[in-house]
C-alpha cells in the first residue's frame, strides 16, 4: 500500500523521528539508497585529486559570495541585455506573486515544472493552484511525490522514500497505470502521461543550478530531459533561484559541475547540461519567446551578514551531506519537516523559518563530521550546527531569527552556580562532601538524559579526596 498522506513539520521532529524509526520500510528504503550513493560517490572521485578539486570549488563559491552584490547586478545587466527579464523577491510570498502575475499576463492555465527546490521552499504549486493555475511536476521523482500528495524527501532524489512496489501502487491509484514491478514500464507510462503536458503547457518553471554573471547564463543540470523540455517547449520560461546561486565566470562552472554530479549521485556527468542565455531570437524556430529570472532572498541576505554563517550560502545543493548522515539515513527526509532535510537543512532552515520552528534540527546530529568531510565546497557543517545550537540557547542577540528560543532560566542559573562553585575551591570541597554524604538521595530520573542512560550518582568520596589520601599513603 502507498503511504497515507501526512503533513510533516519541523516542530514535530521528535515524534516524526520516532515514527520513522519504527517504520522498517522507511528505514530499509533509505538505508539501501544511501549505502548505494555513498559507494557511487567514492568511486566517482577515484581518478581525481579530490582535495584540490574541493578546494577549488570552495574558492569559486567564496569568490562569488565575496562579490555577491556586484555579481547580482552584473548578472541582471547581462541577462537584461540578452533579453531575459530579471525580477527580485524579498521572500517566497513575493516570488510566488511575481510568478503568478507573469502566468496571468499570458492567460496561462497550465504550468509544467522542472525540478526546483526554491519553488518547493516557497510552496509555489499551492500558490498557483489558488490562482486557478495547474502546476505539474515533470521530474519523475517530483511527479511521483506530487501524485502521492507529498513533498520531496531528498533534494536530488525526491521519491527516495518510496520503493518500487509503493510507486506501482501510487501510479495505479492515481493514474490507472497497470500494476507492475518493471521500472522500465513505469518510466514509459510516466513519459506518456507527461508528454502531452509538455506540449500544451503555457509556461515552464525551472530552477537554476548556476547563474553566470559574466554572460547572463542560467545553467541547469539534469538527466531526464524534463528540464530541457520545460525550458524549451512552452512559450514562456520562468527560472527561479536563490540570490546565492550566482558565479562570477563561465570558467567557474566546469569545476562546480564536476563536483556536483559526482557528489550527488556518483555520476561522472549528467545526461544534460543546459545553458540558457536568452529567449528565442528573431531567426530561431523554437524556445520560449519570454524568459524570466526571479531572484529570491528569503533570509539569505541576513545569513550573508555573519562571517561564520555565510559559509551556508556556498552550498551547491548536491545532497552528499544527507547521503552520508547517519541521522538522515535512519529517520529519512520527511522527518525533518522542512524543504531541505539532513545536515544542509539543519543549518539552512533555521535562517529561512526561524529557530522557534526549527530548534530541534541543529541537535539532530551526532556531530560525527561526515557531512563536512564530503561537502564538495567544504562547508564546515558540524561547526555551523554547533553555532546554531549555541544561538538557540544564547542571549538572543544576532542574525539568527528566533535565537535564544531554547534558553531556559533554570539552565542558565544552574550553569552560573556551577561556574561559581568550580572557581571557589573551599565551596567546591564543601559541596562535594555534602553531595557524597547524601548520595542516596540523588534522583534516578533526569528527564531525557536517563531515557537511554543511567543517572549519575555522586561518589562517596570525591576524586580530590582520594588523590590526597593516596599521596599521603605513599608519603609524597
Amino acid at each position: 500500500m502507498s503511504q497515507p498522506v501526512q503533513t510533516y513539520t519541523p516542530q514535530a521532529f521528535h515524534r516524526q523521528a520516532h515514527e520513522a524509526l519504527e517504520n522498517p520500510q522507511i528505514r530499509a528504503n533509505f538505508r539501501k539508497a544511501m549505502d548505494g550513493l555513498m559507494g557511487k560517490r567514492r568511486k566517482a572521485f577515484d581518478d581525481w585529486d579530490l582535495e584540490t578539486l574541493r578546494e577549488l570549488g570552495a574558492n569559486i563559491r567564496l569568490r562569488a559570495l565575496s562579490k555577491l552584490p556586484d555579481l547580482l547586478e552584473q548578472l541582471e545587466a547581462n541577462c537584461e541585455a540578452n533579453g531575459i527579464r530579471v525580477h527580485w523577491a524579498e521572500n517566497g510570498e513575493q516570488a510566488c506573486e511575481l510568478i503568478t502575475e507573469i502566468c496571468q499576463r499570458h492567460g496561462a492555465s497550465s504550468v509544467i515544472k522542472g525540478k526546483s527546490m526554491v519553488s518547493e521552499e516557497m510552496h509555489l504549486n499551492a500558490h498557483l493552484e489558488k490562482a486557478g493555475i495547474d502546476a505539474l511536476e515533470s521530474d519523475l521523482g517530483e511527479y511521483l511525490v506530487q501524485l502521492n500528495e507529498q513533498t520531496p524527501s531528498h533534494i536530488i532524489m525526491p521519491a527516495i522514500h518510496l520503493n518500487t512496489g509503493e510507486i506501482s501502487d501510487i501510479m495505479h491509484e492515481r493514474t490507472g497505470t497497470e500494476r507492475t514491478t518493471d521500472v522500465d514500464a513505469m518510466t514509459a507510462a510516466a513519459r506518456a502521461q507527461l508528454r502531452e503536458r509538455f506540449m500544451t503547457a503555457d509556461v515552464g518553471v525551472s530552477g537554476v543550478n548556476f547563474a553566470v554573471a559574466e554572460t547572463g547564463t542560467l545553467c541547469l543540470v539534469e538527466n531526464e530531459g524534463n528540464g530541457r523540455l520545460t525550458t524549451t517547449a512552452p512559450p514562456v520560461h520562468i527560472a527561479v533561484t536563490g540570490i546565492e546561486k550566482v558565479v562570477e565566470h563561465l570558467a567557474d562552472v566546469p569545476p562546480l559541475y564536476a563536483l556536483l554530479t559526482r557528489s550527488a549521485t556518483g555520476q561522472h556527468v549528467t545526461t544534460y547540461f543546459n545553458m540558457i542565455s536568452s529567449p528565442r531570437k528573431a531567426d530561431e524556430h523554437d524556445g520560449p519567446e519570454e524568459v524570466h529570472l526571479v531572484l529570491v532572498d528569503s533570509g539569505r541576505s541576513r545569513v550573508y551578514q555573519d562571517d561564520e554563517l555565510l559559509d551556508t550560502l556556498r552550498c551547491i545543493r548536491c545532497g552528499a551531506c544527507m547521503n552520508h548522515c547517519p541521522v538522515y539515513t535512519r529517520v529519512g527526509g520527511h522527518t525533518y519537516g522542512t524543504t531541505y532535510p539532513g545536515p544542509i537543512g539543519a543549518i539552512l532552515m533555521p535562517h529561512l523559518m526561524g529557530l522557534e520552528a526549527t530548534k530541534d534540527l541543529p541537535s539532530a546530529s551526532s556531530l560525527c563530521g561526515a557531512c563536512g568531510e564530503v561537502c564538495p565546497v567544504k562547508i564546515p557543517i558540524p561547526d555551523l550546527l554547533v553555532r546554531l545550537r549555541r544561538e538557540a540557547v544564547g542571549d538572543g542577540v544576532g542574525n539568527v531569527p528566533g535565537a535564544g528560543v531554547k534558553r531556559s532560566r533554570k539552565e542558565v542559573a544552574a550553569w552560573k552556580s556551577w561556574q561559581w562553585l568550580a572557581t571557589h575551591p573551599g565551596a567546591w570541597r564543601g559541596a562535594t562532601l555534602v553531595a557524597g554524604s547524601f548520595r542516596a538521595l540523588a534522583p534516578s530520573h533526569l528527564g531525557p538524559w536517563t531515557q537511554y542512560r543511567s543517572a549519575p550518582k555522586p561518589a562517596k568520596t570525591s576524586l580530590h579526596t582520594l588523590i590526597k589520601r593516596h599521596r599521603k599513603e605513599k608519603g609524597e
Partner: protein
Amino acid sequence: MSARDNILGRLRDRQGGPLSAPDSDFGVVTGRQWSRHERLERFEHWISSVHGEVIHCESAGWTETLARVLADKGVKRLALGREHPVAQQAREALADHEVELVDADRDIEGWKRELFDGVEAGLTSTRGAIAETGSLWLWPTPDEPRLLSLVPPLHIAVLDADSVEDTFFDVVTGQGWASAMPTNALLISGPSKTSDIEQTLAYGVHGPRELVVILRDA
C-alpha cells in the same frame, strides 16, 4: 524602496565588512595532455557507459553509416536541418531512400504535434565533444533547433574525431564561450535517463531513448 534595492542594500552594508577570497587554481580541471588516441578512447568509454552508442566511420562515406543506422532502428521519419553540411549531405544521400525527411528549420508552433508524435529520429551536427566525461557539445541553431536533439525517441549526432577535446574547462576557455554564448548551449552525455524509482536506472524518460554518435574520422 524596491525589493531589488532592499536586497542589494543589505548585501552591500554587510555587518561583517567586506569579504575577500583566495585565488582559484584551475589546474585540476585542465592540462590532461592525452594523446589523440587516448582522448577518443576516453570519450567512447564514458559515453558508452551511459548507453551512448558510438559508430566509427570514415568521413567520406558517413552517410552510408547513417542509412544503415536508420534501417537498423526502423526509422521511417527523420527530422533534420537543411543548411549545415551534415544535413545537406544527409539529404542528398537519403533522397532516394525510403526514409521520409522532415524539415526541422520551421517555427515549432506549426509542427509541434508532428514533432512530438510523428518523428522517430532527429539528426544533428555537433560542435565538438569532451573526452573526460563523454559529452557532446551542441549550440542549436535556426537550422538545427533545440527540440531536434530532445523530442524524437532517437537522437543521431554526427561528430568529427578532431573536434574532441580533453575537458569541459578546456572547451569553455579554449573555444571562447564567454564572449559568444548562444541562446542555448548544451552538453549531451547519453540518452535521457532516470533512477528516481528505487535507484533503478531506466533510459528514455522524457528525452531520447537512444543516442547514436556517428564518429567521423579521417
